Structures are given as structure tokens and as C-alpha cells.
């Protein structure tokens, strides 16, 4: 069993909704509520959900871009929000992020060299010059060959796939342990996606990385991830090894998601999912199951209390009364 590298306990993030004349907070949106994760080293954890599920918020929390309202996040046993200033920079060395938009994640006024060298400059207090060797190695590892050709190019001279590779080179140049990838290929052309995904898989083995792979695309999640966590409106509804969850989904939301994926095979006629349009108000704390308005299997108990996690065989967990 691998060591747990990242652990969250009761992680909660409520975004305040400003109301009233004096703009005081009156409640908020429960973007993430009571999320408990344990990500073992060397694995690719998939965080799957639609917009509003809270998956991006969790990504931002794990890299300390935002602070949680409640709960803890631990990296190798150490609470990441309880760090002294000097320890903070060490944290930044171990955790990196790859963003969704390749067109926005690179500073348009910096060359590829400056962008990729920056983490080194910050972490190791180097000067701007003299980092060519490290940058070239990072670019080559990210599949940009020959790397010299890319050194002094500007982002607007590169294609989407190339920019994303630059972003990957930048994220890996300081040898992080844990990388959060937030929809890394959803804005890339289809023919490029596979090569970038395969690159990420290769780099995981080469550098011994652990990934949190955030996506709304279940097919890609299945391709990449060892373990899937399905989120709905701020809560984890199902969690388990990828094949378990995909082949035997237990939560009605997971089943709906899987059934809704279009199948590129004209001989198979997929049934339409037709979920109810009713939505739960995420400004209220989850006192009942969030999926209640849409669920076809609901029972009175579902409205009274939020379902806790049930262990369905150590590699499969689900939060649902109807299982």
C-alpha cells in the first residue's frame, strides 16, 4: 500500500453571497462541503463532475490558491494552511498545477524560456540568466522537440497543444510531488489530446508524480485515472477504482453521467437520460441529499438526512440511501 500523500478532512468552502446595504455576508454558496479525500502516492486520482460540482474549487484549495472555510488539508501529514512563511515556499515546491486554458495560462509578454524558468528562479533564488540547460530538459521532457526552437518564442506563436506542453514543462521543472491538473486537455483539439494525455502518463512514471485529474469528461477520466471520485454540487457521491465505478455505478447520478456520454458507434443506440430539470439550492447547507430533486429512486429518508458513505468492498464507496 502506498503512502497517502494528500489528505483532506471535512474540507468545506462556502463562497459568501454579499447582501444588504453594507455588503455583509448573508450565507453563501456551498461550493464544497465536508469532503474527505485520501490520495495515495503514485496514483492518478480522477475528480469528475459537471459545472457547479466543486471540482475546480477543490483543485484551487489543494494548491492553496484559496482558503477553506472549514476543514484541513494535509500534505505528507503536514497541514498546508498552518505553515510559517518560510515553510510556505517549500510547499509551493511540492505542489503544482496545470490549468485548463492553454491560451491564458502563459504570460503573453514572456518568452517560453522566461515562463518555464520562473519556478526555478523563485524557488532557488536564481538569476534570470543561465537556466537554459534546465529549461531545455524540461521542454524536451514535455515533448517539445527540438527544444532550442522553442526557447525564445512567445505564446502567440505556439499552437494550443504546444502551449499546454510549455505549461507542463513549467509545472515539472522544480520536480513537484503532487500535480493538480484542471481539465488539461478540454480546450485542445481532439487529435492533440491523446498525445498530451499520454505525455502526462509517461511523466508520471518518469518523475514519480501523483496527479489529481479534474475533468467533466468521463471517457478521459477512464483513460487516465486509477481511481474516480464523482462529485455533485459540492459533495462526493461515489468513489472507487475506475473500472468498478464505470462498470458498476451505484449512485443514480453516476449512472446518469455514464449513460449521457455519447458513443462514437452508430450501431449502438443509446437511451436518452432525461433527468429532471429541478435543481437544489446550493445556498442552503446539505441537510438532505443534494441529488434529491432529480432522483428517481428517492425515498423519504433521502429528504431527511444526508447519506453517509457506505463501503461497498474497499474499492467502492457510495453516498446514497437507495443502495
Amino acid at each position, binding site marked *: 500500500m502506498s503512502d497517502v500523500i494528500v489528505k483532506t478532512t471535512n474540507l468545506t468552502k462556502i463562497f459568501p453571497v454579499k447582501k444588504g446595504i453594507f455588503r455583509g455576508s448573508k450565507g453563501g454558496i456551498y461550493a464544497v462541503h465536508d469532503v474527505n479525500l485520501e490520495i495515495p502516492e503514485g496514483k492518478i486520482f480522477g475528480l469528475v463532475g459537471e459545472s457547479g460540482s466543486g471540482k475546480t474549487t477543490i483543485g484551487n484549495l489543494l494548491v492553496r490558491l484559496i482558503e477553506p472555510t472549514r476543514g484541513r488539508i494535509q500534505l505528507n501529514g503536514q497541514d498546508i494552511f498552518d505553515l510559517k512563511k518560510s515553510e510556505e515556499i517549500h510547499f509551493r*515546491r511540492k505542489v503544482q498545477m496545470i490549468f485548463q486554458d492553454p491560451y491564458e495560462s502563459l504570460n503573453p509578454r514572456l518568452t517560453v524560456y522566461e515562463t518555464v524558468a520562473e519556478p526555478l528562479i523563485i524557488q532557488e533564488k536564481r538569476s534570470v540568466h543561465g537556466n537554459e540547460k534546465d529549461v531545455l530538459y524540461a521542454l524536451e521532457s514535455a515533448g517539445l522537440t527540438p527544444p532550442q526552437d522553442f526557447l525564445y518564442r512567445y505564446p502567440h506563436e505556439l499552437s494550443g497543444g504546444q502551449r499546454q506542453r510549455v505549461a507542463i514543462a513549467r509545472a515539472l521543472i522544480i520536480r513537484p510531488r503532487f500535480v493538480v491538473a484542471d481539465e488539461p486537455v478540454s480546450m485542445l483539439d481532439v487529435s492533440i489530446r491523446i498525445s498530451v494525455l499520454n505525455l502526462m502518463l509517461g511523466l508520471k512514471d518518469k518523475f514519480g508524480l501523483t496527479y489529481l485529474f479534474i475533468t467533466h469528461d468521463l471517457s478521459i477520466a477512464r483513460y487516465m485515472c486509477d481511481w474516480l471520485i464523482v462529485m455533485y454540487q459540492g459533495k462526493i457521491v461515489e468513489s472507487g477504482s475506475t473500472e468498478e465505478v464505470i462498470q458498476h455505478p451505484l449512485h443514480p447520478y453516476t449512472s446518469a453521467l455514464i449513460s449521457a456520454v455519447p458513443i462514437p458507434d452508430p450501431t449502438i443506440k443509446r437511451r436518452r437520460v432525461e433527468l429532471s430539470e429541478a435543481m437544489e439550492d446550493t445556498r442552503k447547507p446539505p441537510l438532505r441529499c443534494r441529488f434529491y430533486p432529480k432522483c428517481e429512486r428517492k425515498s423519504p429518508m433521502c429528504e431527511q438526512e444526508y447519506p453517509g458513505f457506505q463501503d461497498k468492498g474497499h474499492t467502492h464507496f457510495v453516498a446514497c440511501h437507495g443502495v
Partner: protein
Amino acid sequence: MRIPTKRKFGLAHLLFKGISQEALGKIGIAIIIIFGVMALVSPFVINIDPDVYDPLIGVDPLIFSSQGPTLTHPLGTDHLGRDVFSQLLKGSQIAFLVGITVGLMATLIGTAIGLISGYFRGVTDSLLMRVTDIILSIPSLPLLIMILCVFEHRGIWVIVMVLGLTGWPITARVIRSQTLSLRERPFVKSARVSGASDWRIILIHIAPNVLPLTFLYMTIGVTYAILTEAGLGFLGFSDPTISSWGMMLQWCFSTGHTFKALYWMIPPGLSISLLALSFYLVGYSLEKEINPRLREP
């Protein structure tokens, strides 16, 4: 292994491209160059014969009133027999000095405040923006006139200081708005995730991306300064020891030569309009290049 050299993509390249693509921009630059040459040539003209050509004290011994253009005085003389052309050249110097100094001051202050306000937000932002509002609500021309009257000192540098210290609010507002949106862009978030300090982010990531906008607002600041100083001069509140274009108009007007000595009245008036316009045209032609660039270069 040959490592290629860095290519130009800086502000200079941007400006050059913007101006050269727009006909109006070229006209603007041309006018600025003409006046620039005039400003540079000024001391040489004076040195031809300082007793005659000094804009303030040089008097033609043969002339005792305002006379029309002649060979020795291409634009004629003013009511004291001073050479108008020499005054005009000196006025160019003043206009550039005042314009660019005020432009630089207002832009630097405005950009700095805009960056800090927009990046740090919260209490800092509220405070700075209230100060901005206060300065914005003070009408600079009456304020200047008041200061000049109260202190009975009509120095050109007082004018420059006041204009510079009151002309920054709009730039601050615009830069703040730009900063607010830039700080949310993924490349800024990425820098933060890598451990960049706030100042590093402001100086390396945000400032260069607002620089084109800064430059645009500087051209507006220069225009504003030239016109305001000229207005002050015409009203008689500018520095009387300096033959700025505004003062030239004031002398022409107060000695009753308006419309009677066109060779005296038109050159400074025309110069004020043209120089102000030229900076505006440069700004206008840059805007096309700058605005889409800010979104997606």
C-alpha cells in the same frame, strides 16, 4: 548548440506597429517631430543675436510696436518689438517640457496607484479609491488659479507640479480595472502556485501587460497638460517670465492686438491645437493595436 537570440516583442515594437499602420498616427508623429525640431532649434535662433532674438528681453532696436512679418522677423514682432518666431520656438520647448513632465508624473502615479489598488484590493483599495475620488472631484484649473493667486508666485514649475499631482485619477481608475481582471488570469495564478511574491507578480506579470494602456493614457495626459497650461497662460495666470504659447496669446489679447495682428495671434493658437491634436492622434492610432492586444496578443 546554438541558442537563438531573443526577438523583439516589447513595447517599442508594439508602438511602432500601431503607429505605422494608421495614417493618422503617422500624421501625429510627423507633427510631433516638427515641433520637436522647433524646440531643439530654439537656442540656435536665439544665438543669432541674443539682444534681438531673446524671446523675453530681445528687442529689435528699430521696432517699437507690433509689426508684420519681414525677412529678419519671419512672424513679425510683438508690441514690445520682440521676435514672435523666437517666442514660438521657445514656446515649443515649454510645451514639450510641461506636457511630457506632467504626462509622466500623472501616468506614473496613476499606474502605481492603479496596480496596488487593483492587486491588493480590500481596505487598501477602498482607501486609495476614495482618495482618487476626492482628487477627481477637484477641478484642477480653478485649484491652480487659486494656488497661484494665494502664493503670488507664477512659476511654471508650480503649474507642472499641480497638474502632475492632480492628473492621475483617471489613469489610476483604468489601470486598476485592468489589474483586477489580470490578477484572475491563469498565468498569474500559476505564478502564485509557483511561490511568486506579490511584488514579483505585480512587476513581472501584471505591469508589463498594462504598460500599453499606460502609454495610451500618457498621451492623453500630455494633451491635457498642454491645453491646460495654454489656457492658464491665456487667462494670464501662467509664468510671465516664460514665453509659452499661452502667454503669447495673453500678451496679444491684453494689448488689444487680437485679430489686428494675425501673424502674432495665429501661430501660438495653431501650435497649441496642433501639438495637442498630434498626441491625441498617436494615442488614437495606438488604441487599435493596444486594445485587442490586451485581450489576446
